[in-house]
C-alpha cells in the first residue's frame, strides 16, 4: 500500500529518471546531463502557462461566485476550455503600438516581464526531490529575481508615452520597493530557524508530527506568514494593493497601451508571480510539500491553491488602498512588526519552549497595541482638494 503511495509520490521523479536512463543507453553522458536540464526546463516552461491559464479561469469562477454569478461556463464543460478560447482571441487580436512610443523598449517590456516570473519557478520545491535547481541561496535568488520584475514594468510605463502608464509606473516603483523590505524581513525568521537559504532545506526542517512542525504553528511563524502573504499580495499588484493598475484612477496602469499578446504576457506574468509567491509562502511557513498521507506534490499544490483562493477572496472583498495609506502601512506597520518578529525568533531560539511562548505572545501583543495606537490615521475635519492645473 505505502509503496504505491510512495510511487505516486515520486511519480514525476521516477519518470524523469526513467527517461534519462533510456537516453543513457545510447548517448554520451554530457547529453544526458543536458537532457535532464532540458526536461526540467521544459516541464517548468509548460507548467507556467498552464497554471496561468487555469488560474484565470479559477479566479473568474470564484469572483463570479462571490458576486453571485456563474462565471464562464459556456466553452467546454464548466467552461474548462475558456482559457484556450481566450488564448486564441489574444493571439488573433491586433497589436497596437502608440505613435511616438519607444518602440524597442515597448516591445521588450512584456517579454522581460515573463522571464523572471519563469525564472522563479526554478527554486520552487514542487514536491519531494522536485526542486528544479536546489540552489544553496534559493531564497535570496527568489527575492533577487522577483525584484527584477520592477524593471519591465518601468519599461512598459515609460516606453508607452502616456501619463497614466507613467503614473502607474511611479506607483509600482514606490509600492514594490516599499513592500520588498517587509517581505524579505518577514521571511528571515524561517531562514533563521532552518539555518539555510535553500528552499528545499527550509521545507525539510518543517517535517514530521503530522504537519505540527510547520513554522506557521509558532507565534513568529504566524506573524511572519501573515506579513509575508500581505506583502506578496502587494508584490504582484493584486487587490487591495492594485494601485499600479487601478482601473478607476489610471485606465489600466502601466499596461494601458498594450494589446493582444503583449497584454496577455503581462497577464501571464502577473498570474505566474501570484502562483510562485504563494508557493514560496507555503514553502516558508506552511511546510511546503510536507504533509501526511497524500503525495507531496498534492500537498504543495493544495496549499498554494488555497493561498491563491485567499488572494482571490481578497480581491472579491476589499476596497482599494489610498496611496499614502499604502505607504504608511508598509513603512509604519509592517516594517516594525517584522523587525520585532526577528528579535522574537532569536528569543525563541534561545529560551525554553513554555517561556518562549509566554514572552512571544506578550511582546507581540504589546507591539501590536503600540503599532495600532501609533498608526491612528489622522483625519482632518475638512479636506479641500486643489485641482491640478
Amino acid at each position, binding site marked *: 500500500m505505502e509503496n504505491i503511495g510512495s510511487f505516486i509520490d515520486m511519480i514525476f521523479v521516477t519518470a524523469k529518471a526513467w527517461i534519462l536512463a533510456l537516453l543513457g543507453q545510447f548517448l554520451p553522458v554530457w547529453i544526458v546531463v543536458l537532457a535532464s536540464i532540458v526536461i526540467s526546463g521544459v516541464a517548468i516552461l509548460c507548467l507556467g502557462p498552464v497554471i496561468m491559464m487555469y488560474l484565470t479561469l479559477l479566479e473568474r469562477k470564484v469572483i463570479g461566485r462571490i458576486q453571485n454569478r456563474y462565471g464562464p461556463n459556456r466553452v467546454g464543460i464548466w467552461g474548462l476550455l475558456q482559457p484556450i478560447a481566450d488564448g486564441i482571441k489574444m493571439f488573433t487580436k491586433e497589436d497596437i503600438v502608440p505613435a511616438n512610443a519607444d518602440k524597442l523598449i515597448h516591445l521588450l517590456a512584456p517579454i522581460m516581464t515573463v522571464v523572471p516570473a519563469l525564472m522563479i519557478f526554478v527554486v520552487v520545491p514542487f514536491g519531494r526531490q522536485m526542486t528544479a535547481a536546489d540552489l544553496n*541561496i534559493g531564497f535570496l535568488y527568489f527575492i533577487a529575481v522577483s525584484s527584477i520584475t520592477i524593471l519591465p514594468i518601468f519599461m512598459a510605463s515609460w516606453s508607452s*508615452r502616456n501619463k497614466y502608464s507613467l503614473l502607474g509606473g511611479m506607483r509600482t516603483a514606490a509600492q514594490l520597493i516599499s513592500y520588498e523590505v517587509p517581505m524579505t524581513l518577514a521571511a528571515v525568521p524561517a531562514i533563521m530557524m532552518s539555518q539555510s537559504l535553500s528552499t528545499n532545506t527550509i521545507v525539510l526542517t518543517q517535517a514530521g508530527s503530522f504537519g505540527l512542525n510547520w513554522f506557521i504553528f509558532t507565534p513568529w511563524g504566524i506573524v511572519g506568514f501573515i506579513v509575508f502573504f500581505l506583502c506578496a499580495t502587494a508584490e504582484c499588484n493584486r487587490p487591495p494593493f492594485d494601485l499600479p493598475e487601478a482601473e478607476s484612477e489610471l485606465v489600466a496602469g502601466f499596461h494601458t497601451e498594450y494589446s493582444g499578446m503583449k497584454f496577455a504576457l503581462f497577464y501571464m506574468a502577473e498570474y505566474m508571480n501570484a502562483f510562485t509567491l504563494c508557493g514560496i509562502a507555503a514553502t516558508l511557513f506552511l511546510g511546503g510539500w510536507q504533509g501526511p498521507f497524500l503525495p507531496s506534490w498534492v500537498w504543495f499544490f493544495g496549499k498554494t491553491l488555497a493561498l491563491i483562493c485567499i488572494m482571490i477572496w481578497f480581491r472579491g472583498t476589499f476596497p482599494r488602498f489610498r496611496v499614502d495609506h499604502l505607504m504608511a502601512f508598509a513603512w509604519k506597520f509592517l516594517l516594525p512588526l517584522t523587525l520585532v518578529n526577528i528579535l522574537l525568533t532569536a528569543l525563541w531560539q534561545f529560551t525554553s519552549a513554555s517561556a518562549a511562548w509566554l514572552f512571544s505572545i506578550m511582546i507581540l501583543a504589546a507591539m501590536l497595541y503600540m503599532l495600532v495606537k501609533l498608526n491612528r490615521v489622522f483625519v482632518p475635519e475638512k479636506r479641500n482638494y486643489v485641482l491640478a492645473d
Partner: protein
Amino acid sequence: MAAILVFALGVVTFRNLFHCALCLAAALIGTAGIYIALQAEFLAGVQILLYVGGVITLVVFAIMLTEHLAGKTVRQNNAQSLPAIVGLAGFVTALIALILKTPWPVTEAALKAKTSAMGLGEALMGTYVFPFEVISIVLLAALIGTVVIAKKDAPEERP
C-alpha cells in the same frame, strides 16, 4: 564580459537617460553573472537585489521625476570629452601595463577555498562586526537624511 562592456558604453553614450538606466541594469546583472563565476553566489544575489531592485528603481524614479516625457534631446556631453578620452586612454594603457607586469600571488589553496552564505554571516557577525555596525549607522543616517532632503513634495522618495 564583452556584453557587459557594450552595455557600459551604452550607459555613458546613450542620449536618452532611461535607456542608460536600462543599460546599467543589464551591465549590473552581467556583473552578478561574473560574481557567480567567481563563486560568490550570495553576493550575486545581493547585487541583483540591491542594485537592480533598489538603485535602478531609484534612478528610474528620479529620471521619471526630472526628465520630460517627450524625449527632447538636449546635448548630453559637455565640452571636456576630448581631454577625458585622452587621459583615460593613458590611464588604461598605464594600468594594463602595470597589471600585466605584476606577478599576482594566485595560490591553488585560495582557488580551492569555498565560501558559503553561512560563513559570510559568521564573518560579518564575528570578525567584521565593527565595520558592520558602522555601516548600519551610516545607512540609518542616510535614510534620515534622504527623507529630510526629499521631504518637500516627493514623499515617496526612499532609499
